[in-house]
């Protein structure tokens, strides 16, 4: 398929979507201001910085870490992150012996209140098909090498339970405060396809 063909197909979709929006507004079903508010919420207010705050707090506060592991929904809600697509949370912790990784093979289940909306790759066939049969191969593509002796634990989100990975706290971060620690927590490290950044590094 040529690039031009791709492009025209996309433009056609865009035109059909525009027509649908006009129709639903004309029929009085939707309020344009509400549509803008929904988009703005997930484009600017809810995203992986929320999850990073949860992880940073778990790293710095042993009592909070215990609470997060025993009742993630309540522990996360205590920081103000709750609701749609995060109604039932479970936090799973990486250790030197266990690496956790989350997928939704059947659709795109993802913990919106802590991570925002999922990236395209998380919702696409390559990740959804391979994460369960070849997690180590997928991790290698993300530049993550897991020791053969370490258990890889994949969590397929087949119900309304949503999973948050607590990555390992990087070495060299012992003296850092919660705010500084949050900057080390990447989106991918909370899906399990990445590691937390080392102090001084930058990444996604």
């Amino acid at each position, binding site marked *: 398929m040529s690039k031009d063909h791709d492009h025209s197909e*996309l433009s056609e*979709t*865009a035109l059909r*979507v*525009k*027509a*649908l*929006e006009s*129709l*639903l507004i*004309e*029929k009085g*079903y*939707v*309020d344009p*201001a*509400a*549509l803008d*508010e*929904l*988009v703005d919420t*997930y*484009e600017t207010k809810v*995203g992986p910085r929320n999850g990073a705050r949860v992880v940073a707090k778990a790293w710095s506060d042993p009592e909070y870490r215990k609470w997060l592991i025993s009742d993630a929904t309540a522990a996360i809600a205590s920081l103000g992150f*709750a*609701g*749609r*697509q*995060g*109604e*039932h949370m*479970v936090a799973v912790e990486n250790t030197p012996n266990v690496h956790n990784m989350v997928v939704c*093979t*059947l*659709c795109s289940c993802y913990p919106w209140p802590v991570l925002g*909306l999922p*990236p*395209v*790759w998380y*919702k*696409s*066939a*390559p990740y*959804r098909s391979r994460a369960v*049969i070849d997690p*180590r191969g*997928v991790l290698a593509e*993300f530049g993550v090498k897991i020791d*053969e002796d370490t*258990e*890889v*634990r*994949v*969590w*397929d989100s*087949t*119900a*309304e*339970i949503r999973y948050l990975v607590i990555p390992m706290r990087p070495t060299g971060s012992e003296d850092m405060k919660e705010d500084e620690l949050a900057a080390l927590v990447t989106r991918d490290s909370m899906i399990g396809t990445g590691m937390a950044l080392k102090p001084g590094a930058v990444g*996604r």
Partner: protein
Amino acid sequence: MNGAQDLGGTMGHGPVNPELDEPVFHGDWERQVFALTLAMGFFGQWNIDEGRFARESLPPAQYLSSSYYQIWFAALCKLLVANGFATDEELASGKQIMAPRSLPRKPLTAGEIPLILAKGGPADRTEPGPAKFKVGDKIHTRNINPHTHTRLARYLRDRTGEIVMVHGAHVFPDSSAQGLGDDPQWLYTVRFSARVLWGDDRNPNDHVHADLWEPYLVAA
């Protein structure tokens, strides 16, 4: 259903290809599809499981060659027509032909969004009776192949695993997607060895966990 959505373990889809500094939406039409899907969903004329079934019942060739929001758009159009919000002619022209249908509630306003999103839609319900299984129990998954919606993926059927979490009773998607009500059933997290699922050449340390309802399970 054994549709194109049931991707676990299928092959030939290529590398993962993460996009660097990916934006939340790629273009306005994705924003529109996302917002329209949520806004129309708030009327409560279809539930999350009926929504998922509308997507996974797209023809496999269409499902696999569509982008994520193209799938959402196709499913939204189906749901709007099936629930009397619009006709195919209206979707094609973008112009009103039929009078609007009666609405179960007022259209969503911007002001009520923060509260509605914060409340979400919890799936836990009153237990239908005592749980059949407890943490540590060995179970075997049933071999089922319904034409209707199920969350028991093909790669998890007819396999032995172990209960590692008990979540209480949750809405049972297999019933809910058919408009048969919540039909609450006990929900468990089950742990499967990678070798049980995929064969002896897998790393013996590796495991896959899935959330499975009691009707999917029998004692092993």
